[in-house]
């Protein structure tokens, strides 16, 4: 059963993953640094995926390996991780109430979102929006 679960939530390259080491999945702890990053990505045509999570949320931890794998797989997409308790204003601005919430943005505007540890839906939507 354990291996079934692991294969469901882990991506293909997840053998020895340190989720914070992937340069394409950055965690932000302060509002000014986040704003800087957000503004710079806004200028590009890259898809941005924000992962709103919380330390008290089990389902968020469940999704972590899958998210790291997606960050590796979709190297043309910017992934950012925000803790809703550290950045409550940003969480409120994006209306993140249930966790994890993934918001997909292009040029600073929301194009879609996924709420919950829904690996399939997230991957399909990232694939859909990452080009043009």
């Amino acid at each position, binding site marked *: *059963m*354990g291996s*079934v*679960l692991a294969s*469901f939530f882990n991506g293909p390259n997840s053998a020895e993953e340190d989720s914070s080491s992937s340069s394409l999945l950055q965690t932000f702890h302060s509002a000014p640094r986040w704003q800087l990053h957000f503004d710079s990505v806004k200028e590009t045509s890259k898809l941005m995926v924000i992962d709103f999570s*919380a330390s*008290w*949320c*089990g*389902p*968020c*931890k*469940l*999704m972590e390996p899958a998210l790291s794998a997606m960050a590796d797989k979709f190297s043309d997409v910017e992934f950012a991780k925000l803790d809703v308790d550290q950045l409550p204003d940003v969480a409120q601005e994006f209306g993140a*109430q*249930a*966790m*994890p919430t993934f918001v997909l943005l292009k040029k600073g505007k929301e194009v879609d979102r996924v*709420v*919950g*540890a*829904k*690996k*399939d*839906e997230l991957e*399909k939507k990232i694939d859909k929006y990452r080009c043009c």
Partner: protein
Amino acid sequence: MAVSGFEGFEKRLELHFFGDIDEDDNMLGLRLLEFESLEQVLFAVQCTVVSAVGNPFFDAYVLSESSLFVYPTKIIIKTCGTTQLLKSIPPLIHFANNLGLHLQTCRYTRGNFIFPKAQPFPHTSFKEEVIYIEQNIPINICYRKASVMPSKLPAHSWHVFTATCLPPLEFPHDDAAFTVEVCMTELNRHLARQFFMKSGDGKTGDIGGKEMTELTGIDTINPGAFICDFAFDPCGYSMNGIDGDRYSTIHVTPEDGFSYASFECIGSVYDDPDDIVVTLKKAVQVFMPETVSVSTTGCSREVWTKVAHAFEPLGLKCRSFAMDEFPAAGTIVFQTFTAARRK
């Protein structure tokens, strides 16, 4: 009725804990359980997580065979098929103890299995189940009661076991929340077909689940709730709804011959009693079953009286009523309904 098939009727376990909850941990309690620990518990039960979502009050997991809810001081696991639900008790107590939490109350409920001979130990009989629970909970949980609540339908009775260490006068009778567990069989065939995946669709899991939720109107039962859903291949559906600190959950086994659907939710004594009735009617309307059973735990007389008449507009008549008191759980009422045109 088929000779064998998937068992839709669930086994439900609710465990309450108490202990020193560290202020620093933000009163997270059981939510601090490592996911690896939960995985071990689910491994013992023989099911896995397929989807999940959390909010400030609790975490909700959709499992391969039903649902798991983790609150700071209580865990609710509901599983169907041939899962060994009670085997979750020893590891859960162990992991909770590691967090400084101790078992206070245990409540186990289920209906009648459609295929009882297919059930593994300790679910081979209610007697075995009770013996197993009693052997695996601490001896200070000394106020215990097991009973089978009957109906006029031999295939529908309600099995209840509760145990607590709280002395009778300390039962939290001012606990405002009550639980409603609805079991539906012989679902309308046309409506049940909506829970089969379309062939060649390739729409799996959460994407397929979302479509089923919208197509069947399950999203209108409580429009304020956020729904975490999942569609199984080739058929079957599960969802957890989260709304503040309240959950609701639906599980569907749509196959003809052993079709089954369950709906469970939390109500509050502060709600308008008509609200719960409206909710139950909407849930039953999704399936239009031939038989419905409703078990309420801890609700007011007004609520279960209204439930008795709730389904009349849907052509379902109340056929039986049973009521009993259980340690810590309070009053449990079990009512069954069948199509009015049946004698």
